[in-house]
């Protein structure tokens, strides 16, 4: 049975071969250094593959702690998917509504989305107040004092 490191090495190796082949359309003079780097990545992925095959049990070696830690945290994929989706929506509306309004909507939205079960009118009001305060501090500090430009939309 192939362990996870070997699979990762295989994917990296295939990727580097594809990347190396894609360089054929570019002037070789402009890609000398890139070719060296790609060959180095390929060699390292082979090393990782050998390492993965030698350490048959996944979770051995120094990467063990990290691997097992990541395995343990996989349970939280739903909130991660929620955050990912909320950020995409945030980006989509940012250039239409402007930075501050979209940031406020995102702040309240993502907090409510991630903890909708415990939502009460009191909590909802607190979240709106915290989001408002946070955005107001950013606005004062960066837009008014430092005069940093932000994406502007229909609103501010």
């Amino acid at each position, binding site marked *: 049975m192939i362990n996870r490191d070997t699979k990762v090495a295989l994917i990296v190796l295939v990727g580097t071969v594809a990347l190396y082949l894609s360089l054929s359309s570019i002037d070789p*003079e402009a890609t000398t250094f890139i070719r060296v780097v790609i060959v180095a990545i390929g060699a390292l992925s082979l090393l990782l593959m050998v390492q993965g095959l030698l350490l048959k049990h996944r979770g051995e070696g120094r990467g063990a702690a990290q691997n097992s830690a990541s395995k343990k945290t996989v*349970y939280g994929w739903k909130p991660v998917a929620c955050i990912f989706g909320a950020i995409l929506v945030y*980006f989509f509306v940012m250039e239409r509504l402007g930075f501050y309004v979209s940031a406020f909507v995102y702040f309240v939205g993502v907090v409510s989305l991630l903890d909708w079960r415990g939502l009460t009118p009191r909590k909802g009001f607190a979240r709106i107040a915290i989001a408002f305060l946070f955005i107001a501090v950013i606005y004062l500090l960066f837009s008014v004092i430092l005069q940093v*430009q932000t994406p502007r939309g229909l609103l501010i």
Partner: protein
Amino acid sequence: MAEFLHYFPEALSFANLIALLFGVIGGLILGATPGLSPTMAVALLVPFTFHMDAATGLVLLGAVYTATVAGGAISAILIKIPGAPANIATLLDGYPMAEQGKAQSALYICFISSLVGGLFGMLVMILFTPPLARIAIQFGAPEMFWIAIFGITIMAGLSSGSIAKGLIGGMFGVLISTIGYSPILGIPRFVFHDVLTGGVAIVPALIGLFAIPQVFSLGEKLGVTYARPEYKPERGVFLKTLIENLKMVKALGIGSVVGTIIGVIPGAGGQVAGLIAYDQTRKFDKDPESYGKGKPEGVAVSESANNAMVGPSLIPLLTLGVPGSPTAAVLLGGLLIHGLFPGPDLFLKHPDVTYTFIGSLVLAQFAMCFFGILLSRYSYMVMSVSNLYMVAAVTVLAVYGTYSVQNSFDDVIVMFSLGTLMYIGGKFGFSSAPVVLGIVLGPIAEDNFLKGKMIADVSVGVWKYFFTGTANIIIILLCVGSIGYSIYGEVKMHRKSKKNKKEMP
């Protein structure tokens, strides 16, 4: 030293002092907040310094760096969660002290010892950085190429789970840095979309790679709550603790010296400094068994060590342009957006900015101690902040910071894409630091490789040009040594885990 004293008053200007104040207080709060790494805190701040004077921006970043390292001890002592890896050794005795009702004393020892160690490290930095920069200025293209490679090998070995994955991450970062137009011929490379025409800028990369994976990780841990510590500050403890702390000469001495030595080694970091110094102090103590049970010397040695490494950890960055730690890599981003190229030239072309920055780091040590002691009584409030709000706040700051540097929405897309990829990579054992270093050091490596190759082609040949000469051989040996040391560490860890497995019933 004379130049340092000449430019020191610059650090005391009103704007710089305000930046220092904000940086230290903000850094202490961010450092004490579990779940927010100091590197990410500094990365989020980099774009905002773009709108400041170069010296003031660097003062702010330096102050945040100094304060987050010390601030991380607050959560280590009060809730047994180190705010930064540098504070791991602090919790060994800090938390037992808090359990015994001596949290206030432990926090005071932490900040006083941090000041002692920090000042020692800064002194070494001030004395040794300019002479080293004068040596480094004699380096040519091949030496600078090997130094860039050395930086990647060091970080790859120490911050990733496995050396192979660390190096792949570092090389992947170098590959990302080649996106855009080639530096000599101006031919586009890997420009699959208009967004990538200008290449990947340093700020979106820094923020994306450090902040976005952290946002997703915080999302995974939404259910985690930290117990509110029982901590009631009393009057009259400070003076008593100060006298007790200053009597710990051995612990403070070992911590400061070990922290400084480890700090100079690129990539070693405060975590290693704190643990080695702690171990040495325990070995030299008459009662080694008392460590780990709430011994004040344990807190003093680890905190003096991790703060002593702050100044020296910047020596490779300021003299060679090679960041010695992930936070130094972020600081490098701060220098680059102001058009300052770290390395030997920095002291010659921009002595005002460089020495103001160094001077402010000295002041930051005092400010960190003062505000740390002052704010420690309210520290439990910081630890009650929900991950929910941190997810929202970090995302908003990441987007805002990325956009504000070039007023480009494309940068925001690049930042988010890199961050999402890094989060997925993290699930397979890859870490952000080598990738960031690859992106930062990639252009240095490519420029010097190409320059060297052109010179070599018309003179002695590539092999002789890159692989001979004392400096080249020394740096190559350092690269081999750093990889060898990492492999040794990996094999040792593998044997240990195998042994532990056998011993388990």
